[in-house]
């Protein structure tokens, strides 16, 4: 923790407790007196929002688990039972299902913010890697949770994703059999996915504690990317950050409520309201929106193992990101060239998401037809190949090379100076906000 603790217990009981288990002191130092850079903008509120999401998922999930039956004969019906018969069951399920989407949305915002302001750079590498671990755990949890309602998309999504592991030579088949507990996705698979889906949020909570710990050791990054140099550069967590985070949470909950109460199935797929049938695959199988970019990368490669490796590589590359960026300047606010590449990267992620939701042979645009009637133009496979190439180039080429060759803008001396320098701030806001 930074600095000396200023906590002073006021009552007899807290004095007694403080010498035995200084837990109130820990809370005070971490969330009241903790100094935060005074220039944090709203992109920095997603951390708090994410902890709200995790708590929401755990509470609603625990309750859903009281009514859900993890068995192939009962899973689908028990979900319908929750929707129709359980008191407020529809609310709990819609909050939980849409909560997953909101959670992933917030984590993507949080990650893009980290990318933009260079929050992964020294001394925050471990903080960033712990975040990547949380993201991986979240993806695994979301995937297994989507299997539980045992609809057509649940079932065939599980088949496709678990078969990815079968792409590995020699051991692939043993791994899938072991994972399935049989020779296909079946009751043992559903049962263990339920168990793991229950476990993983608590693993996430554990890594979140490490993540916050690492954050408090290194201190928060800020939009200027300059470390606080004096007391003038910081304000106390409470009330400044708590109120700002709280206000952002209210806005976030409004968006959340729009989905839960007015568009509860907008993020889902109609086919998942058909009970799972192992003998028929839906004609168009797509993952949830938050996996679409990775799904597009998977399909961009004509080889089964190559596609799977590239897809895992797209996440793996995030882990080594701190060592790929060679720039001495942390925040993109002072790196105009890097900023262009960053926004291209964001656009690429959106394009990959678009490609992931379309059939590979569909045309993005068509300029004509061959003699045999085949369309000429750009199809989604080729669009995803171009986008996937840029996705990897951004990390593996742009980041290492640009840091060495670009000329960054002048970086102010301190956070306070960055705020006082009105024109620079205005420019930064225009790009960041």
């Amino acid at each position, binding site marked *: 923790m930074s600095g000396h603790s200023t906590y002073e217990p006021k009552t007899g009981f807290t004095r007694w407790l403080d010498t035995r288990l200084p837990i109130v002191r820990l809370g005070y130092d971490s969330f009241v007196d903790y100094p935060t850079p005074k220039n944090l903008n709203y992109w920095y509120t997603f951390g708090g929002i994410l902890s709200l999401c995790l708590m929401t998922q755990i509470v609603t999930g625990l309750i859903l688990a009281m009514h859900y039956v993890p068995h192939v004969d009962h899973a689908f019906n028990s979900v319908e039972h929750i929707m129709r018969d359980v008191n407020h069951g529809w609310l709990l399920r819609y909050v939980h299902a849409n909560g997953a989407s909101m959670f992933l949305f917030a984590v993507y915002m949080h990650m893009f913010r980290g990318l933009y302001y260079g929050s992964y750079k020294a001394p925050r590498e471990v903080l960033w890697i712990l975040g990547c671990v949380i993201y991986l755990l979240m993806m695994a949890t979301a995937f297994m949770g989507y299997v539980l309602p045992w609809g057509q998309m649940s079932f065939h999504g599980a*088949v496709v994703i678990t078969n*990815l592991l079968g792409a590995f030579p020699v051991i692939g088949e043993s791994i899938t059999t072991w994972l399935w*507990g049989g*020779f296909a996705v079946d009751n043992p698979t559903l049962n263990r996915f339920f168990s793991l889906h229950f476990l993983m949020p608590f693993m996430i909570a554990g890594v979140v504690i490490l993540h916050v710990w690492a954050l408090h050791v290194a201190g928060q990054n800020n939009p200027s990317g300059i470390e606080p140099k004096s007391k003038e550069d910081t304000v106390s967590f409470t009330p400044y950050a708590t109120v700002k985070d709280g206000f952002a949470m209210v806005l976030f909950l409004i968006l959340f409520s729009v989905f839960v109460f007015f568009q509860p199935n907008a993020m889902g797929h109609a086919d998942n309201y058909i009970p799972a049938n192992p003998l028929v*695959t839906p004609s*168009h199988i797509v993952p949830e929106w938050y996996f679409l970019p990775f799904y597009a990368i998977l399909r961009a490669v004509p080889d089964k193992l190559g596609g799977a490796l590239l897809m895992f590589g797209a996440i793996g590359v995030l882990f080594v990101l701190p060592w790929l960026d060679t720039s001495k300047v942390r925040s993109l606010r002072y790196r105009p060239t890097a900023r262009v590449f960053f926004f291209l990267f964001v656009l690429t992620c959106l394009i990959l998401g678009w490609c992931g939701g379309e059939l590979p042979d569909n045309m993005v645009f068509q300029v004509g037809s061959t003699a045999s009637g085949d369309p000429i133009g750009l199809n989604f496979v080729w669009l995803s190949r171009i986008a996937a190439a840029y996705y990897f180039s951004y990390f593996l080429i742009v980041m290492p090379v640009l840091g060495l060759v670009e000329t960054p803008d002048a970086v102010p001396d301190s956070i306070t100076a960055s705020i006082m320098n009105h024109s620079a701030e205005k420019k930064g806001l225009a790009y960041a906000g």
Partner: protein
Amino acid sequence: MADTVGEITPAGEDPSRRDFIYLATMAAAVGAVGSVVWPLVDQMNPSGDMLALASLEFDLSKVADGSEVTIKWRGKPVFIRKRTPAEIAKAKADDNADLKDPAKDADRHKPGKAEWLILIGSCTHLGCVPTFGGGDWGGWFCPCHGSHYDTAGRIRKGPAPKNLALPQYAFLSDTKVKIG
């Protein structure tokens, strides 16, 4: 480590004896941890009753010429297709075509039973169930990622690496087949 051991070892005693004890203890600890972890890992493999469901019998008289029945075996779909002479001829004609996973049509069915094609109906790409009648070779087409299979269930185009797999099966009589 040798230095420390040397200091506490009485004169004349061979320090390698102590190293041996360390190594033996480590080996025993690794063995003990391994034997505890293995049951925790292996419990995820198919259980006894899952393995016991390994075979089933099917009455072929239910399948008309040029049609297909899909049954569930070990949780996976199995296609039992009664091929028409045209389908068989087409499959034979392509025996020497440029195949991704080369196989003769004769190896795809039991000897003298060319009309019966029995396949595991699970795309070798990512396990979706292909549908018959689609695709460019008159066989199966996988809706998930666009793999085309011919009338012998051989992969012809698309991301799937292998032909549709053949289950173990045997004809018990002309109208009865045992799968598994």
